[in-house]
């Protein structure tokens, strides 16, 4: 109760004093975010992810080290900045999670149902995908986003993702665009990036995955999309589904040219 009053008071003060003073709460929040950047708990997930990549598991007692994330078997550095992409061996466009599932099944012999049992973790019930994603994306930190649209299926995925971005549905008649297609929108004190503009699209995509302090968990882009769907009261966005890949392809491609900068830390 008190927090809401305080937030409202902060906003009211900003509104009354005009643009210059309004930057004050924003500047303080920027300081807060900066202070958290050093010593990102995401590193704990990165360490787990690296261990999982190298660990022999499943009926085939194999590690993921031979997994091809698009740049060759076992090449992790820079791979995330080029995903999603078309994989000939699956004849399908895949994002990171889908590709990991593919490798868990093909290389380690896991069943699809078992591999995808826990897409998102909670406390000590960890998700392998979050740990793997933390490490694999860290290996693309500093790399320029470079998602290709060379294969027809890649173009198809992008176009489908674009349609999904603007598709209005659900009980609130929301689309992604409802929150993310205009500048200066926010929910309470949370700024909403404009994903239809280059700068907004780049900033948003290059800062996931992120350690979300509000949950104390490392959350991936798949999670972010899944949670947006939940907040819009849309049907569940299935983990590693073609739909999730298409939407990711659209948003990732729109971030091309930006420097990838995750795992980050967010509220």
């Amino acid at each position, binding site marked *: 109760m008190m927090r809401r009053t305080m937030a409202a008071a902060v906003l009211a003060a900003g509104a009354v004093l005009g643009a210059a003073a309004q930057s004050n709460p924003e500047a303080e929040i920027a300081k807060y975010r900066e202070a958290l950047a050093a010593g990102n708990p995401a590193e704990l997930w990165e360490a787990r992810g690296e261990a999982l990549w190298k660990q022999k598991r499943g009926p085939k007692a194999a590690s993921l080290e031979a997994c091809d994330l698009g740049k060759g078997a076992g090449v992790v550095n820079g791979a995330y900045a080029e995903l999603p992409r078309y994989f000939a061996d699956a004849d399908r466009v895949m994002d990171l999670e889908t590709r990991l599932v593919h490798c868990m099944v093909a290389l380690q012999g896991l069943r699809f149902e078992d591999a995808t049992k826990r897409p998102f973790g909670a406390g000590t019930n960890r998700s392998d995908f979050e740990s793997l994603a933390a490490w694999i994306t860290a290996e693309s930190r500093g790399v320029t986003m470079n998602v290709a649209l060379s294969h027809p299926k890649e173009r198809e995925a992008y176009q489908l993702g674009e349609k999904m971005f603007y598709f209005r549905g659900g009980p609130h008649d929301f689309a992604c665009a409802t929150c993310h297609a205009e500048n200066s929108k926010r929910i309470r004190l949370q700024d909403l990036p404009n994903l239809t503009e280059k700068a907004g699209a780049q900033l948003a995509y290059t800062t996931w995955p992120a*350690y979300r302090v509000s949950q*104390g968990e490392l959350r991936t882009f798949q999670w972010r999309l899944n949670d947006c769907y939940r907040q819009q009261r849309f049907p569940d966005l299935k983990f590693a589904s073609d739909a999730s890949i298409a939407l990711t392809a659209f948003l990732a491609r729109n971030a091309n040219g930006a420097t990838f900068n995750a795992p980050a830390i967010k509220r």
Partner: protein
Amino acid sequence: MADPMRIRAAERDGVVNVKILMSHEMETGQRKDGSGKIVPAHFISKVTATHQGRTVLSAQWGPAVAKNPFLEFNFKGGKKGDRIAITWEDNKGETRTDETTIN
């Protein structure tokens, strides 16, 4: 067995900066789970940092320290190549020690 800590120790101008990330739920004992039951308190209550066996920091914590605790401090007298050890102990008696080399 708890997850390992991430420890970074860097020496500059005779001062060693130590940054530690610990993996721990830091449950306050005030939260309720989905079924309405209190999640029991589970938090790091003691932290000790040693340099070549000598304590350079000790701390007592309550559950208000944030989940996946971060700790940073500086001490004099460490040299590149020296070992630093960090130990935490929680209210359930679990403990974890990790070491690193000052670089």
